[in-house]
């Protein structure tokens, strides 16, 4: 037996030695490259990168070719940034369909961007956060910018998101004026604990309530950011409950398509979904991510990257609503929308102002004050009084 064991050990030793030696040879050359790169780039904290040397990595959860929804909206932002800064196609590295619940796939995709020389990498989905955090520590020369999460390190790992709740409030006005059954459906990606989704629902319901106090908002949770089938099913269930306007916080336009099929209406999200459901989508709460992407890459080129988090709103034109679908919106919508937009832009109204009643009979907030940003991004775990989760 002893003989046998030593044989195994000897063999495995020999094998592992022979197995590493050829690999080491090939490893020598790229290692040299890396050191020269470091020499040129360690002059400042986050040194300026010449425009020609910029390489942008983008990690998408879906496929930009979907032509609508979350990934499309982000990719349009990248395209907008590329145009604004005059970058070449070869300076953008896209990694599509990267599952954000698969840390290995996430890491592989990000490392591949670094492999191709990316100096700034945008991760667009929530689940990339932990992997980006770890890799940011491992690759201090690369900027990791993560959308929608809450982690950052102040230097090469920041977080970006925006006040989409402002757009949701306004889209709520459009829905509230349109509904006849006074039941509005809302397909939500995540449940009550998720402040981003829950805050969005509340802002929307408050918008509805501001023009139609009788209307109720029914919420259906899919527990996934991107799940075409679940999103369809949720919309179907809400329509069956009698909802005649379907709003959504999920990645595909499927809820809009379902609404169109049954002759109902909808409020899209991420990109202008009237492209997908022209007979149903009244308007969409949309992102113009190019505002952020241009800002971030420009900062890197100018050497003004500070590592601060980004939280833009309607003022920065990061969020807004897509053009109203004139042929199907209710009368008076335009005026009501313009009025609310004006109040948000001049700062007299911040959506989560004053005392807000929740659906379990409690209240949140104080008279004369507004919720602070930290609460809005991480602490909205209650529903507005007209909201019911189905």
């Amino acid at each position: 037996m002893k003989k046998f064991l030593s044989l195994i050990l000897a063999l495995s030793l020999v094998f592992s030695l022979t197995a590493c030696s050829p690999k080491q040879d090939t490893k020598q050359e790229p290692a040299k490259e890396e050191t020269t790169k470091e020499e040129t780039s360690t002059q400042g904290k986050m040194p300026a990168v010449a425009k020609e040397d910029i390489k942008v990595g983008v990690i998408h959860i879906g496929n930009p070719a979907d032509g609508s929804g979350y990934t499309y909206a982000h990719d349009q932002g990248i395209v907008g940034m590329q145009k604004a800064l005059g970058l070449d196609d070869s300076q953008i590295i896209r990694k599509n369909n990267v599952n954000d619940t698969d840390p290995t796939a996430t890491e592989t995709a990000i490392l591949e961007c670094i492999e191709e020389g990316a100096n700034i990498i945008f991760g667009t989905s929530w689940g990339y956060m932990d992997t980006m955090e770890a890799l940011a520590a491992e690759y201090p020369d690369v900027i990791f910018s993560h959308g929608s999460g809450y982690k950052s390190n102040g230097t090469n790992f920041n977080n970006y998101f925006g006040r989409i709740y402002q757009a949701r409030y306004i889209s709520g006005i459009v829905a509230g004026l349109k509904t006849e059954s006074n039941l509005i459906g809302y397909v939500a990606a995540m449940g009550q604990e998720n402040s981003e989704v829950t805050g969005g629902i509340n802002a929307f319901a408050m918008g509805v309530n501001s023009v139609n106090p009788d209307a109720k908002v029914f919420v259906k949770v899919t527990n996934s950011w991107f799940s075409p089938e679940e999103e369809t099913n949720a919309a179907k269930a809400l329509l069956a409950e009698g909802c005649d306007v379907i709003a959504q916080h999920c990645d595909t336009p499927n809820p809009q398509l379902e609404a169109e099929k049954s002759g109902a209406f909808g409020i899209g999200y991420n990109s202008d979904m009237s492209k997908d459901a022209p007979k149903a989508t009244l308007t969409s709460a949309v992102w113009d991510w190019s505002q952020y992407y241009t800002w971030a890459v420009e900062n890197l080129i100018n050497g003004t990257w500070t590592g601060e988090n980004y939280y833009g709103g309607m003022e920065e034109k990061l969020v807004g609503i897509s053009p109203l679908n004139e042929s199907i919106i209710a009368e008076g919508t335009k005026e009501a929308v313009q009025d609310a937009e004006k109040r948000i832009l001049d700062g007299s109204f911040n959506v989560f102002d004053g005392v807000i009643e929740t659906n379990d009979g409690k209240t949140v907030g104080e008279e004369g004050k507004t919720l602070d940003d930290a609460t809005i991004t991480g602490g909205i775990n209650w529903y507005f009084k007209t909201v019911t989760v189905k």
Partner: protein
Amino acid sequence: MNKSQENIKVREPLVRTVKRAERSNLDIIKLRIIAFILALVAGGLFILLIGFNPFELYLTIVSGAFRSKMAIQATVKFMIPLLMASLGITLAFKMKFWNIGAEGQIIMGAVFSSYFALFYSDLPHIVLIIIMFISGFIGGGLWGLIPAYFKSKFNTNETLLTLMLNYIALHVISFLRDGPWKDPGSSGFPKIARFEANAQLDKILGVQFGWIVGLILVVVVFIYMVYTKHGYEISVVGESQATSRYAGMNVKKIILRTMILSGGICGITGVIQSAGSDMTLAASVAGGVGFTAIIVAWLANLNPFGILMVSFLFSVLEKGSSVMQSTYGLSTYSASVLQGIILFFILGCEFFIRYKFVLRHKGGNK
């Protein structure tokens, strides 16, 4: 021909598949080369169809897998779980026990070891890693033992049972993720916390040391199957259970023992994936590797060194297509189609090495 065909007038099908006599090695190599060329041609046509230059794309696949230190590391990273899971199921397959449950065994290995990674992360590093490997082996082994027990006791169909256990394992992760092991700091997003650095596998030459475990396992499994009594018993049971019983072997015991080993190796794969690559327990820990491993094991003819080679080629293809996808802005789906085409020909070739088609003759069979 057998009796039933002689007595009952059965209309013979137009084409029959017949197991062919052994081909010479030269023939086999020729066939494989032809299949490879056909695969490249068919794949090339597809590439042309979507408007790219096939030569460029193929070159990108190869160079993408080896172009730099990082690329090679990534290729090796793809290979580790595939190599280990293939070795694991090979033991069972050699016994003709169709273990389709590597996915589940990988997951259970990851689940068992993650318990220690999550809740005992303050143990000394080496102790913790050893405990994680042992618990992973036990987790995977138990998951392999269940179908083996039912097979030996009630002669149940192991293909179905191992397959179904995959789904149970997957739901165990979902249950833990949404409930008891949910990361409290994740603001509602269902996920399990990232492992502390202490519970993560160390890197050797820039890649988690799973690759060394994999290489050692290649040798160990080879020796176990070829030079030990156990290995001999496995192949005898695989050839004929009656023979092995006649030779006085305890078939039940052999099945149980082998499935613990088979599942156990898959379980270790789970440890290596979760603690070396995912750094958390994710539902994607197996991610289809357990199924791909079946193809790898078969292509390699259940030979551990063959498995090493095949799984390496698989990871080159995987890594290379990923680079190709982003370099040319292809959709991930077209990269999958290309992979599928290549696999189709390679697998088809293996079929023709082992079987042949026989056309129906006019004058009945003969």
